[in-house]
């Protein structure tokens, strides 16, 4: 606990300065925003970058025969480069902009899954997947006859690696898994999962929506085939997401969405398609979103992902320790291993929705529900849970207020445990 308190007191960056960059903290409050796994807030720098683009750099990108077309094209290229460097991709060609992680995962399912899978094949996912990395594979399984299988969890809410080894086989064509659970906080050993998949020549899809905002990710070190994430969960705007794919795989894939910008020649009955990454980006692209995401990356990098991860881990550990002191709280969070900044819990004898309403009354924003993980919740034996999730602009004091507010939940809901 001492090390935790020390880290919370000295995060290694200027927390007050950071907090002054977030306008929501100016709202008549308090607003203790602990719903960062759903979507983060945005610093003024990100908002101002988008503003500037829309005011002074806006034109239709890629077709620049004039000054504003050129500035928009450059803004797009710069943003793509920034994203590529941020995740360690060797080329901007491997960075496809999408709307969100969900769309990225659908793109893989449609453009790779439907065309490469067949009856007898296995799609291996995990018990803790978000619906966005779950329902898309159900769809592919139903369409192709491939069989969907699930890696189950250990009693400590970790991925059961033994179960993984038992289930993977030569028939496994794709292993799709969350690199950080949005509910449990579990961070499985992605490198090990990918390594084993390679033994069976299975492609790997890493849902990094909850990892990228928290920890430095390097796709070349991971050596994954696909990796996806959403801008809005990492200080970027809504409406922009990323699909990373290895160039050699993307090259072999058919396009997904058809339309402007993604074509080469359009004959009456047949067309050929543009080079990477454009082949997968149909229609006018959201350059406003791209520059916002690039600004978010700059903001994160200026602080340092290592510092962010260490501080967010301290916030999480502190909160877990505090929650564990409350006998009427049940926590769904691993004891061992790496953990992301999300904690699922329930107040015994109180429905999560009531808990969230009462906390909201105290200005504490958490989430109640199934968090888009119904299969995981069935496994947990809970219809729904509460979830607190942190970002580096949260503070120890905010967690203390959250814990205090839980005491009022206990009182109002007349829980005597």
């Amino acid at each position, binding site marked *: 606990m001492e090390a935790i308190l020390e880290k919370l007191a000295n995060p290694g960056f200027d927390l007050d300065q950071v907090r002054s960059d977030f306008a929501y903290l100016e709202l008549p409050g308090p607003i203790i925003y602990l719903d960062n796994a759903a979507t983060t807030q945005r610093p003024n720098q990100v908002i101002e970058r988008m503003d500037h683009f829309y005011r002074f750099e806006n034109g239709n990108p890629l077709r620049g025969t004039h000054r504003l077309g050129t500035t928009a094209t450059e803004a797009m290229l710069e943003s793509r480069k920034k994203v590529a460097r941020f995740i360690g991709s060797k080329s901007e060609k491997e960075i496809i902009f999408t709307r969100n992680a969900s769309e990225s995962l659908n793109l893989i399912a449609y453009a790779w899954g439907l065309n490469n899978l067949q009856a007898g094949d296995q799609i291996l996912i995990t018990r803790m997947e978000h619906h966005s990395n779950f329902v898309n594979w159900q769809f592919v399984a139903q369409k192709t006859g491939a069989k969907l299988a699930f890696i189950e969890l250990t009693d400590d809410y970790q991925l059961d690696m033994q179960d993984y080894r038992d289930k993977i086989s030569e028939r496994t064509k794709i292993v799709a898994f969350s690199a950080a659970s949005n509910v449990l906080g579990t961070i499985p050993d992605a490198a090990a999962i990918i390594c084993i998949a390679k033994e069976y020549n299975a492609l790997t899809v890493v849902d990094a929506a909850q990892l990228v905002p928290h920890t430095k990710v390097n796709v070349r070190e991971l050596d994954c085939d696909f990796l996806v994430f959403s801008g809005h969960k990492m200080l970027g705007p809504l409406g922009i997401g990323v699909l990373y794919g290895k160039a050699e795989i993307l090259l072999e894939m058919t396009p997904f969405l058809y339309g402007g910008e993604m074509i080469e020649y359009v004959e009456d009955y047949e067309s050929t398609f543009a080079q990477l990454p454009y082949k997968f980006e149909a229609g006018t692209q959201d350059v406003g979103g791209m520059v916002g995401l690039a600004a978010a990356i700059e903001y994160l990098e200026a602080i340092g992902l290592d510092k962010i991860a260490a501080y967010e881990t301290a916030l999480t550990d502190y909160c877990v320790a505090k929650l564990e002191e409350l006998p009427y709280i049940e926590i769904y969070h691993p004891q061992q291993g790496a953990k992301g900044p999300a904690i699922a819990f329930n107040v015994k004898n109180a429905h999560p929705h*009531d808990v969230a*309403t009462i906390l909201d009354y105290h200005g504490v924003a958490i989430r109640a529900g*199934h968090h888009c993980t119904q299969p995981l919740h069935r496994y947990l034996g809970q219809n729904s849970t509460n979830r607190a999730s942190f970002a580096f602009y949260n503070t120890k004091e905010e967690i203390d207020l959250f814990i205090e507010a839980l005491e009022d939940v206990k009182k109002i809901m007349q829980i005597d445990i």
Partner: protein
Amino acid sequence: MDLRQIYSQIIIENSRSNKHRNEMPDATATERGYNPSCGDDIHLSVKIDNDRIVDVSFTGSGCAISQASTSLLCGLIKGKTLEQAKHLVETFLGMIKGEITDDDILEEELEDAIALKNISTMPQRVRCAVLAWRTLDLIIAKQTGTPMTE
């Protein structure tokens, strides 16, 4: 607004009450009510005899507000005609929408269910409060062909 006006003694007690919470094997009609966003999930059963609701019960789970509202509904409509029940649905939905505000009328018609009046100030919980009533409305609509209340 004080939270205790929402989570009043009546609500907390009714949310935990098992009085109407049971299966009804010989039900005339059973419908499911579900709030995908928060997971409130109930089955409401009624036994109808000659246009009269002679028995009513529910199973399921959800937040205190949805469970209390369901329990209060059961207590209120047992013994009522379908027409009377429909009128109660309208009054209840009117109260939640803030369209019917006269406490005398509400108290007379809805009795303890007036405890849910303040939900009208919490848009994100309205769906919890009305779940059972909309489910009942569906049952009535199917039985009688009257259109559902908006």
